[in-house]
């Protein structure tokens, strides 16, 4: 029977979305329980504040302005998520995205503040820096069999210290932060193309946001509609089979990580070239953007388009965390929720298998 009708819960898309929603609900539930444990009186209000994020503001312009801020941070998160996702399709776990993001931030700020280059030069330099780190991981994986997770983590730290060192020359004299783009080199700020008017003149809203969405669509096209994308996915399914059928699996591994690195590097430029935040040259931990990208990519069902929405959601609750009353609840509660969500995403495969198994046994029974 060719035109066998599939039940609602048998469609892969429905399964993926319902699994993601289930993860979100369970993650929020855990967050709520933790809030209850800390202080039961305000817990319900706190979780609502967290979910409302910018909607807590009464006036419409304020809402739009802070929606803008959340979107400004969603763009780099989406890029990191895409980086991890692209590599995951080739069977590589690019935890080094966090370091590639750091390298991108270092490169674009160095070009902007030290060399006074305009934004359209800073962007590709950031991509290049990220790609370089990705290339090292890929090379080590392809030719020396080094686990990409361990080399990625090592490079995260090497990248962080290198960037801190190279940006020390352009920091403010009285603080550990780099000088602002607006004062040192306004030509490096990303153009807004009038987008800021939609968000109550929030000048941090730039072309970075539409560009990141375009990147997601592009990744989707590359993965599903091109020979290259097909080869990458084939390499991910079975490295040996891919080599057997004439694909250059070593080249594909390196290329994947180069592209992944470039995506994460670009993500950093999408954020730091808006002038929203300055880099602190004394920071001793790798920015969480790359790690949150892991949450976004798995929550998005490993689909580029789904990732757009999941990135927004992860950033929404992360930003929402900062609205909590700091003298009662720590804002890291949103990190806690995202990490619980990632943990639960590990069970998604089992969940799907369970749904499909139930269906198969039911069918088998009908035939008899």
């Amino acid at each position: 029977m060719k035109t066998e009708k599939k039940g609602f819960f048998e469609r892969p898309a429905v399964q993926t979305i319902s699994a993601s929603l289930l993860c979100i609900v369970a993650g929020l539930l855990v967050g709520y329980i933790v809030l209850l444990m800390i202080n039961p009186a305000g817990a319900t209000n706190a979780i609502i504040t967290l979910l409302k994020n910018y909607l807590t503001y009464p006036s419409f312009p304020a809402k739009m302005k802070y929606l803008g801020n959340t979107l400004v941070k969603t763009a780099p998160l989406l890029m990191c998520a895409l980086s991890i996702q692209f590599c995951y399709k080739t069977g590589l776990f690019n935890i080094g995205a966090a370091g590639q993001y750091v390298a991108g931030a270092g490169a674009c700020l160095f070009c902007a503040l030290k060399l006074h280059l305009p934004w359209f030069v800073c962007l590709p330099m950031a991509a290049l820096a990220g790609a370089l780190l990705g290339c090292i991981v890929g090379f080590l994986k392809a030719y020396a069999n080094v686990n990409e997770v361990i080399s990625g983590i090592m490079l995260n730290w090497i990248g962080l210290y290198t960037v801190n060192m190279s940006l020390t020359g352009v920091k403010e004299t009285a603080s550990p932060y780099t000088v602002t783009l607006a004062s040192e080199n306004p030509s490096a700020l990303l153009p807004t193309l009038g987008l800021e008017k939609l968000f109550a003149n929030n000048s941090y809203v730039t072309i970075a946001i539409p560009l990141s969405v375009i990147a997601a669509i592009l990744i989707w096209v590359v993965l599903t509609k091109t020979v290259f994308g097909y080869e990458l996915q084939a390499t991910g399914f079975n490295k040996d089979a891919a080599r057997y059928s004439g694909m250059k699996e070593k080249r594909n591994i390196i290329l994947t990580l180069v592209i992944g690195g470039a995506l994460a590097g670009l993500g950093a430029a999408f954020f730091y070239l808006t002038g929203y935040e300055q880099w602190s040259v004394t920071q001793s931990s790798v920015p969480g953007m790359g790690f949150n990208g892991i949450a976004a990519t798995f929550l998005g069902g490993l689909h580029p388009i789904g990732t757009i929405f999941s990135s927004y959601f992860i950033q929404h609750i992360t930003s929402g965390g900062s609205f909590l009353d700091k003298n009662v609840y720590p804002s890291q509660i949103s990190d806690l929720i995202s990490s619980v969500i990632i943990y639960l995403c590990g069970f998604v495969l089992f969940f799907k298998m369970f749904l499909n198994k139930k269906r198969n046994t039911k069918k088998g029974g009908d035939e008899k």
Partner: protein
Amino acid sequence: MSLLIQYTLIFASVLMLVALGGCFSEHSGVINLGLEGIMVMGALGGALAMKAMGETSPVLIIVGTVLISSLSGVIYSMLLAVASINFSADQTLIGTAMNMLAAAAATVAVKSINIAENPDNVSSTVVYGAAKKSLVINIGSFQLSWLTIVAVILLAVSYVVLYKTRFGLRLMACGEHPQAADSVGINVAKMRWAGVLISGFLGGLGGITYITAGVSEWKFETGVAGFGFLALAVMIFGQWKPQNIALAALLFGFFRALSNVYSGFDFLAAMNIPGSVYNMMPYIISLLVLAFTSKKSRAPKAEGIPYDKSVR
């Protein structure tokens, strides 16, 4: 010089404990990338226990700290065991989630405790200076940690358990060829649970050793700075063998110690190399070491693959 040896010993103990933990887990067939998170949890448990105990008898403090931190590690490692053994989850994903969860949960826990004590204290720092004194043996100006002694004992125990007992050999069989192990009546799931829980025990102990190395308070927002992953590099360099792991840990511990004490050496200080370079050193060394040793890897053959009875 004695300071360098002191720090080398303590950091080597950390790396050795955690790498041995990874070793047990991987020999049973489960890749434990959550060691970093397990360390954080062990450190959290131990630090809170030390803070609560304050100044009492040294024996009580040593035993209490060791027990509570290793127990925290064991409990936290159950998250990995359940997901990867009973639900066949992706071990890389689960390990990463555990690392992030530990950092977030520890920060939330410490901050809430601090806020409950004093609403104006929103830091994520635990102070345990009073109890920490009992963990140190002073030999002149040289300080030896009791935890280093515990680590050396556990090294010997690990060697014996892994190679000289029925349990250890069965554990390794589950990591090499679980189907064969199952066919002779070994319960693979049970063995893997044991492997992961032992790694939780050792990882938790490594965590408390790390945060008591030289400092008497810890800011939990910073986690353990990739030490869990350095330990995995040590494990690979040590080719999954306890005796080699101990030597590898000494080498890595030396480079990590150097970043703490380089300014005390005249010729190193005179070279005027920025501190960041020394901070990077352990990571660079491990990357190089991995590049040269991973090719002829003696990794357990079935590690990372969920056991499926129906597969030949």
